[in-house]
């Protein structure tokens, strides 16, 4: 009897582990990924309004305990101000990139300039839902014209890229995430490199920058205008924090900070732009 129960228990666990591994395999396989993605999409369409309902209920309680009686309106005003500051900072940095000159060049090359591209403004409804990824969830999805791969800007620069798009919500991978890689250009020589996210707890690096490339602290790096780039050109990505070149190294060691203030992402703009193939 005890042996029968034990073997049934073992069989149950084996079946569950096999099913889990099969689901992971389906998700990782390029051909069947759409299946798991579809399941997630349906689940998120059901889940998002429920979650928002719960947030609507508990938010006032949280605001009450947070302090002031009119905390909610102050917070909303603060979020609007943060958004405005972010837009101003982005505009200011873009001017430093010789905006007019770039506009002329990109027009000649038939490349889009960010300001001429359509955008969808979205509100951040969730940040870092997992301890292991740097992502945000937005309140706009496929129904609002948001698709996978669209760049997301705000708070002074590039925020990330849409990696999942559901009916009314979407998930954005932040540029600090370990899987994020952004091609950049910087300086008068239009030097190129790749800004690599190193995970939410570590600072980003700029890789593939040739040794002795002129660079200075605080220098802003912009999305590159190379063909088939994943982002439109001219968006501020990062600013240089430290740089050095070790003897014999094949590239400079550059640590960078995000140009966008990723701690102030109440509102962002999703750029409806797809890379040229």
């Amino acid at each position, binding site marked *: 009897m005890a042996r029968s129960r034990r073997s049934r228990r073992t069989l149950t666990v084996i079946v569950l582990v096999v099913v889990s*591994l099969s689901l992971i395999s389906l998700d990782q396989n390029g051909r069947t990924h759409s299946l798991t993605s579809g399941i997630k999409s349906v689940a998120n369409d059901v889940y998002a309004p429920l979650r928002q309902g719960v947030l609507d209920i508990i938010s006032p309680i949280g605001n009450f305990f947070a302090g002031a009686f009119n905390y909610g309106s102050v917070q909303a005003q603060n979020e609007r101000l943060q958004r405005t500051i972010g837009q101003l900072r982005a505009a200011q940095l873009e001017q430093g990139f010789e905006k007019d000159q770039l506009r002329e060049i990109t027009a000649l090359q038939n490349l889009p300039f960010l300001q001429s591209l359509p955008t969808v403004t979205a509100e951040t409804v969730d940040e870092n839902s997992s301890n292991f990824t740097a992502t945000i969830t937005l309140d706009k999805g496929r129904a609002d014209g948001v698709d996978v791969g669209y760049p997301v800007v705000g708070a002074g620069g590039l925020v990330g890229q849409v990696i999942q798009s559901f009916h009314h919500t979407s998930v954005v991978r932040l540029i600090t995430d370990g899987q994020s890689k952004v091609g950049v250009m910087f300086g008068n020589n239009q030097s190129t490199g790749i800004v690599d996210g190193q995970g939410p707890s570590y600072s980003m690096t700029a890789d593939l920058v040739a040794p002795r490339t002129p660079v200075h602290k605080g220098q802003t790096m912009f999305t590159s205008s190379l063909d088939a780039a994943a982002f439109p050109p001219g968006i501020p990505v990062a600013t240089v924090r430290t740089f050095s070149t070790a003897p014999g190294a094949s590239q400079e060691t550059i640590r960078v900070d995000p140009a966008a203030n990723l701690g102030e992402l109440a509102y962002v703009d999703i750029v409806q732009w797809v890379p040229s193939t």
Partner: protein
Amino acid sequence: MTGRSVLRVALVIFLVLMVQQTVMVALRIGGAHPDLLWLLPITAALLDGPETGAIVGFWSGLAFDLVLPTPFGLSALVGCVVGYSTGALTTAADPRATWLKPVAAAAGSVGADMLFAVLGAILGQGEMVQVNFLSLILVVGVSSVVLVLPVNRLMRWALAGEGNRRSLVPAQADSRIW
């Protein structure tokens, strides 16, 4: 599990999912937030043994997989393993011991997060091991010790009538654990 227990467990999973995604994600310290997910299989295993722990871990993990950006099925796999391991490792422990739930919660949750990160890295998401593990261990460990009691109460309600091993303990004696 009976049909009624299945419904109750599903309700508890949904409730914990909502609390996790609305309240817990906002309680971020040093880049990490509490992780309620793993407490479901741990408490189920403590209450009803490894098989129930594995089943609850699988379904709760699957529910979380639907809303997390990590690989689909990963939470289900880890939840299943954690539920089974917790049940198997605590079979011989005295269920009235006051240390059992906090220790199982802290060790199980931290172990689950480690396993989750390593398996994620093996699946090609190397950034999952590029987190601040010290703050993750502290936040998840401490919060699990604090939150295991309410989650255990919910799970006990969900599994009521299952004839589980912990229900063999007289209610009065078991209440001392609280």
